């Protein structure tokens, strides 16, 4: 069919008339332009966004795990032993064993299961999936570690919500994220805390 050219073509007279070959060329050129202009930007931006989304929570989780990182005590060995003896009098057999293996004391509260260390505490929320990491301690660097824990434990037992208010929150997030940042020797404590937290009623917390 020999059609009459569109009269509107006069308004775009500089444009070459489209045919199959020109369509293919245009298509290829468009794709090449897209790759040349968009992809080089999209790939690094995507990678940067992914890294950002991964690295930032990891850094915070490390900060959270640090609150219970084992540190060398400045106190004499005798004082350490004496303080651990007193701490042992305050907790049950299960908590004593966990402390001996991990350095943390498990304490069941109304807000969740607490794992108390000399300079901080982890709160495993009921259900066991979420953890809040608190930096809290007593301001006397010469105190032996057992006493430092006992200080926190007694404060926690007298006012759990007040304890969580006084403490500084270092991280809040998934338990697995904190666990992988803990020292290997400390991980069983978090596992025990999660087991205890799973038994707590999520609706019963204040």
């Amino acid at each position: 069919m020999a059609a009459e050219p569109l009269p509107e073509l006069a308004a775009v007279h500089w444009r070459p008339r489209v045919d199959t070959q020109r369509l293919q060329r245009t298509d290829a050129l468009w794709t090449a332009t897209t790759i040349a202009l968009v992809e080089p930007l999209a790939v690094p931006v995507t990678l940067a966004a992914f890294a950002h989304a991964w690295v930032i929570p990891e850094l915070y989780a490390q900060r959270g795990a640090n609150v219970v990182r084992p540190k060398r005590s400045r106190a004499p060995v005798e004082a350490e032993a004496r303080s651990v003896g007193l701490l042992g009098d305050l907790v049950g057999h299960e908590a004593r064993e966990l402390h001996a293996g991990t350095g943390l004391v498990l304490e069941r509260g109304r807000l969740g299961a607490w794992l108390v260390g000399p300079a901080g505490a982890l709160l495993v929320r009921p259900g066991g999936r979420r953890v809040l990491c608190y930096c809290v301690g007593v301001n006397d660097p010469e105190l032996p570690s057992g006493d430092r824990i006992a200080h926190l434990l007694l404060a926690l037992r007298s006012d759990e919500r007040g304890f969580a208010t006084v403490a500084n929150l270092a991280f809040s997030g998934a338990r697995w994220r904190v666990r992988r940042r803990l020292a290997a020797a400390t991980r069983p404590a978090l596992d025990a805390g999660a087991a205890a937290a799973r038994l707590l009623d999520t609706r019963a917390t204040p």
Partner: protein
Amino acid sequence: MARLIRMDQTGHTTVAEWRADDPEAIEAAVRAFREELDRGYFAMVSTGEGQAEQVRELPVDADLVILRLPISGG
């Protein structure tokens, strides 16, 4: 024998000991208790499993009173 102990750099120190039928020992314990509170210590008494209470007067009938320092966010 009831004890008032202070958590300190030695692990802990027994500040006072008393028996309910010994008024002199109680009086000495109350005096020591107040001195420690004046120094900034808090007195804690266990009130059951996983529970403790801060006291401002020496509970004479308690077996163990523990003195602790204030805590703070790190």
